[in-house]
């Protein structure tokens, strides 16, 4: 199993993790606060520069594919469950338990709007998964100084994944070389036959855990007195600029929410969105600010070198 994150050494990968984390959180918050379908489409589009500059189109594609499946799921739920809306397109006969089900135009439009919201959210998450080194992510959380043990635990878990993987592989080989048929029989037998590997993997791993606890103890883990942190993520002045850029996105969404710009009422009646000058300027501003960290990221190297 390979990490979803691969260091592709692009300007997006070089952006400070804090900047990317804030940006992702802002986009997620934005996608929840806004429900105007056009603005959501624009929000989604403004995540694409990250994907292109970060050279993660293929991996990102598989996340988007997943979104399509989930969208169908969401559409079905909304159409079945939401009996709101005034334009009834289809009315089912009396069904047992469920009663009459009305499928309304509003619920279909709402489903489309929600699919776009999902697309924007998952695109942001994909960028987080694919371009931030999990180790840097954890170190960043550590800057908050509170959840030290949680971060340490997660980081040890990640560190051991490659060798647990080798263990798993060796155990599988060992079973095979001893004539054990793993992919045989029906559904239940197959699970049962494969399951035999888990207790052995657990036993070997518990042995590992004793040894690493021993090593931690020997290096002063749990000593009394203050614990300090050796943070190896370098932060330059340019990084602060980019972090500020991401933070401003948060501010933008907050203002929009307070002023109720970008909220659209799907129910009970869909109404056309009035494209006014102020609407267009908000939309433009949104795209520009959401895409700006990615678009300006190639400049970072140039500025840092000066």
């Amino acid at each position, binding site marked *: 199993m390979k990490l979803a994150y691969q260091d592709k050494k692009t300007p997006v990968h070089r952006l400070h993790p804090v900047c990317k984390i804030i940006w992702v959180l802002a986009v997620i918050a934005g996608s929840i606060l806004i429900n105007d379908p056009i603005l959501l489409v624009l929000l989604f589009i403004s995540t694409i520069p990250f994907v292109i500059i970060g050279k993660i189109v293929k991996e990102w594609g598989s996340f988007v594919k997943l979104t399509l499946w989930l969208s169908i799921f969401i559409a079905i739920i909304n159409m079945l469950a939401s009996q709101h809306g005034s334009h009834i397109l289809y009315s089912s006969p009396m069904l047992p338990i469920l009663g009459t089900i009305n499928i309304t135009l509003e619920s279909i439009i709402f489903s489309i709007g929600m699919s776009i919201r999902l697309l924007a959210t998952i695109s942001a998450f994909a960028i987080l998964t694919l371009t931030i080194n999990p180790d840097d992510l954890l170190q960043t959380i550590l800057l908050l100084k509170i959840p030290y043990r949680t971060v340490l635990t997660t980081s040890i878990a*990640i560190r051991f994944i490659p060798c647990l993987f080798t263990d798993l592989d060796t155990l599988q080989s060992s079973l095979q*070389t001893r004539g054990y048929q793993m992919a045989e029989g029906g559904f239940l037998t197959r699970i049962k036959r494969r399951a035999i590997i888990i207790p052995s993997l657990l*036993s070997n791993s518990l042995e590992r855990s004793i040894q690493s606890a021993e*090593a931690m103890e020997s290096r*002063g883990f749990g000593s009394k007195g203050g614990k300090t942190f050796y943070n190896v993520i370098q932060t330059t002045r340019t990084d602060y600029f980019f972090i500020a850029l991401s933070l401003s996105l948060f501010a933008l969404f907050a203002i929009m929410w307070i002023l109720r710009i970008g909220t659209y009422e799907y129910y009970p009646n869909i109404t056309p969105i009035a494209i006014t000058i102020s609407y267009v300027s908000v939309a433009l501003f949104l795209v520009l600010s959401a895409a700006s960290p990615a678009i300006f990221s190639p400049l970072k190297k140039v500025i840092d070198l000066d």
Partner: protein
Amino acid sequence: MIEFKDLTFKYADSSNTALSNISLSINDSEFILITGPSGCGKSTLCRCINGLVPSFYGGEICGSVEVQNIDALRTPTKDMAKTVGMVFQDPENQLIATDVEREIAFGLENLGLPKTIMVKRIEEVLDTVGIDHLRHRQLSTLSGGEKQKTAIASVLVLHPEILVLDEPTSELDPKGAEEVIQLVKRLNEELGLTVILVEHRIDRVLQSVDRLIVMDSSEITYDGKPRGWINLAENKLPLVGIPPITHLSVELKQKGIDTKIPLTIKEGRQIFSPILKDNKWKKPIQTHPHKSKNITSCIAKARKLWYKYPDGAVVLKDITIDIFKGEFIALIGRNASGKTTLAKLLNGLLKPSKGKVEINGIDTTRTKVENLAKCVGYVFQNPNVHLFADTVEEEITFMMNNLGFSSKMIEESLDKELKQFNLEYCRYAYPRSLSTGEKQRVALASVLAAKPQLLILDEPTRGLDYGLKKNLMNYLIEYRKNGGTVILISHDIELIAEFGERVVLMSEGKIVADGNKHQVLANSLHFSPQINRLIQPFTKYGISSDILTVEEIMQGFK
């Protein structure tokens, strides 16, 4: 200064004492080697120095341990970190961060040192240990030797006065082991660090240590100069495995020739020179040329075999090899030379990218590994990966059940294996609670119970003490007497020189030498055993240039 006074210790879950009446005093800047068979208590002794015993493991203790005037038994390990640095056997499990720099910083963070000091100390230690080039590398991409050096750096950064290393090389390949040993020597010489090193293979270090401590069944049986021990305890020698060159002086002594005791080839050549130049030696002993056998008795054959891993690395290039019934083949070569890959192709775990592998005439691509298991047995390095069952008995019958043996055959075979491998006393024991040697026997028994025609062992002797190695070899000899064929992957040249027959040397995915052990191992710079290196200048005096072992040289002695 470390002072053990009358220390006796027993683990909570054990009925035997792990240490009994240990009294020992170690001076500052001494370089101490501790050796002894598995389970003799040497690891426990190490763990007393930084308080892991008893505060981490628990048990019953009596006596005292004082380390730099600290009562080590009553001080928590975490508070000993600044005084004692401890490096463990497995390079994998003692590292907990994801990259080298963060790993080294971990201990400093725990002690709460300010950042400016951390930066300085990390810089220094990276240079001292010589891993500056690795500082940003992910730990999972490092070799075993590099990981072990990182572990040493990560304890050294706390500026301990004492460095304790518990079998730091037993999981490493020879190159990694050599690097670690050189580093430890340098730390002792240049920084004056007290070093306590526990090792099975003592030939690499014996000449550089100040003191040797030998332990056996929870007691110290020798404590003194490294050379003195060889004179003292001849009956203990086979248990620990002394360097062949030293062994030669012991053998000569039995023949009435008293020599000084050499520890290195250089010393050996000086000391033995008069004896080897002496015309007391018989004509060259005969070598055994590799006979080409009848093709019908061929068990496994590979033809023009190529293998490429999914990531694109080509590890085997155009391998053609025949394995005949009854052979004992040692597969040697540097790390990543393709030995294990070849072995895995020979039992069908991997399928050739190009070319063909046939086992008993069956093309491996046409069948599953599970079906080949009947003909080819495979023993992994770590016996733990063989253990799936709850009792030793179930473990041994596991494979026979998989292969559909009749219950009568299973019963017969089980009794035979239990007896042969001396496992009757732990027939119903939980396999994982056994000792290393016992586990190894269970693993071997479980594979041999199914009576494979070909047995492949992947570095089975790594980390084993000399006694266990010898036992293992005896089992293999027994197996071959009954018509078995063995392929042994190993780095242990001395072992192969003693027990091997045909040797296949691999390099960069190719077979570069294939023949009788005398042809392949003699006169090779990197892969020749100690005795062979010793005798090279003396061949003009009538000593055969392909002598590999002490036994062979002594045969030529009139």
